């Protein structure tokens, strides 16, 4: 009888536990949603806000150049051309984002990298804007960023991850254990090499100067 009632108690506990965990699940979902919204929204709007700022500043400059007379008009044309390109690029990013991140988008990956590193407890030292990267390299660099950061989270044991970028390159460095044995079944870096080759670029990986791992994608100067 003692053991029977023990079984009953256990059953009863199970039911209660079930209900409690369901409620907890709802709460988790709500909190995750709020948190994710705040984080992703902030990061994404940030990146696009930066592009928009660049457009505004360039428009202001173009106007001032045109107002100051004919000498400035050549530079003004260049500025207007630049901002036209930036606006088109930002529009592409917005579309990519709305369509569910199917194509890798550099701003979205940047936002995602911050969230992922944060969740993994790795300090993220990331760029805040991507306008310096021309449109033709945005997608491939987005893939480089995604794979590079995923690897830092999975393999490095690092405390800090640092990303830098320029018009023709993107670098992901960490202060973890550095290049190890390497996995025969791995395909991440091989995939990046292929993608980079498609735009005439290359991938270099190796130990970072102060220990850790560094990955650098380089693309040609001109299209």
């Amino acid at each position, binding site marked *: 009888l003692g053991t029977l009632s023990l079984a009953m108690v256990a059953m009863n506990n199970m039911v209660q536990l079930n209900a409690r965990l369901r409620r907890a699940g709802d709460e988790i979902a709500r909190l995750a949603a709020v948190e994710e919204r705040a984080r992703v929204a902030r990061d994404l709007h*940030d990146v696009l*806000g*930066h592009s*928009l*700022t*660049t457009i*505004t*500043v*360039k428009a*202001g*400059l173009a*106007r*001032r*150049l045109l107002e*100051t007379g004919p000498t*400035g008009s050549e*530079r003004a044309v260049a*500025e207007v051309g*630049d901002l036209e390109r*930036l606006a088109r690029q930002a529009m592409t990013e917005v579309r990519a984002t709305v369509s569910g991140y199917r194509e890798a988008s550099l701003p979205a990956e940047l936002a995602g990298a911050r969230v992922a590193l944060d969740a993994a407890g790795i*300090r993220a*030292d990331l*760029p*805040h*804007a991507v*306008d*310096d990267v021309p449109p033709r390299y945005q997608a491939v660099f987005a893939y480089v960023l995604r794979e590079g950061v995923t690897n830092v989270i999975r393999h490095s044991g690092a405390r800090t991850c*640092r990303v*830098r970028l320029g018009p023709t390159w993107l670098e992901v460095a960490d202060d973890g254990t550095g290049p190890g044995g390497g996995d025969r079944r791995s395909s991440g870096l091989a995939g990046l090499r292929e993608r980079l080759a498609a735009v005439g670029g290359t991938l270099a990986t190796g130990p970072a100067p102060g220990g850790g791992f560094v990955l650098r994608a380089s693309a040609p100067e001109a299209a």
Partner: protein
Amino acid sequence: MSGRITVLLADDQALVRGALAAMLGLEPDIEVVAQVGAGDEVVDAALAARPDVALLDVQMPGIDGLAAAARLRDALPSCKVVILTTFGRPGYLARAMAAGAAGFVVKDAPPEQLVDAVRRVHAGLRVVDPALAAESLASGASPLTER
């Protein structure tokens, strides 16, 4: 010296930095004497160029513009600092003021306003964009410990 207001510009976005430099360069009484792309390069560049005014972006690699402002105040107290930002985040304004910044302005302000801000802080005035101040409103949490 030349009587022109000398300016250091710090922004990690090369496109913005270039445009701002060109914009300020159009003014006869302003000269951009140094440009850097990271927060931890600000002090060295300022000590070398000794600008009258430093325009510092907030979000930069290395250290952010607010931390750079605090270091710059110790290293070169004569240099007036204007914080330029894309967004007013909770705590930014409080940190900017604590770091002794004389100006707090959005980066996409009309060129005329940016130029005016440079002249005014150089003249010893304080320039705070009220809309931006309002945006930075919720400063409660931890204004001094951004990441």
